């Protein structure tokens, strides 16, 4: 019923999903902090925000994330992709610790251990459930 559809290239795609989402969010938050608060009466500020390099790079990374996420869902289960890519939270925390020398409290280290264990568990199992023919709602709708 389940099988492994993973190749080295597909693990790389999952890595891209894991890394680009938190990094994209991080860059957007830096960019929006530089732009400042946006009020409903001055929505044109959002156009100005698009000229900020961090926001442009953040949007590019989030486009990368979404396209890689869609690709991964075409050859792996949702319940495989979501835990497997949650390692991105850990990567960002480790980058903040070793790159920016931020202090990581004990609870966060514990969270890192739990997420890493979850990724280890799920990626060692099968990645794709073959759906029997009697589920017509999941048959090909777009050719």
């Amino acid at each position: 019923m389940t099988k492994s559809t993973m190749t080295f290239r597909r693990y790389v795609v999952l890595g891209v999903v894991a890394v680009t989402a938190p990094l994209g969010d991080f860059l957007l938050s830096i960019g929006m902090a530089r732009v400042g608060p946006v009020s409903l009466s001055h929505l044109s500020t959002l156009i100005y925000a698009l000229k900020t390099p961090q926001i442009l790079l953040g949007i590019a990374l989030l486009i990368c994330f979404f396209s890689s996420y869609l690709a991964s869902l075409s050859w792996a289960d949702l319940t495989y992709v979501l835990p497997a890519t949650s390692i991105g939270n850990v990567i960002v925390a480790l980058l903040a610790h070793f790159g920016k020398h931020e202090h990581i409290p004990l609870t966060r280290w514990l969270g890192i251990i739990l997420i890493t264990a979850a990724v280890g568990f799920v990626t060692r199992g099968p990645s794709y459930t073959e759906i029997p023919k009697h589920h017509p709602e999941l048959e090909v709708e777009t050719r």
Partner: protein
Amino acid sequence: MSTLSLQHGWADAAMIAAIVIFATIGDVMIAAAMRAIGDLDDIKARRGLSGAILAVLGSPRFVFGVSFMALSFFSLLFALSHADLSLVAPASASLTFVTNAIAAKIFLHENVDSRRWLAAVLVCAGVTLMAL
């Protein structure tokens, strides 16, 4: 507990529930769309990148799923303007892992074995701890 704080508690729970429900519907619809479309690597090999993009954008389930993801995002923004980030973000992120596992088993007929349940619960707990 005062009546006011109890009302705040229910309001926070309702906002978090809205985020989680919309995100789960969005994720499941998008996953169903991608499963129905088939392996994007194969489609790209046969019809090129534009063919793959057209196959995705032409799927009603995909459009429906993205609409629900947008609803989830706006619900998050709304919730953040009324409740604490330290409550809303980790609660919605971690609960979504569990609801996605349940929805994927029921609606996508994925084989969610004990390994995947354990992974979903560990990620849920891990995300909560990292946000503390």
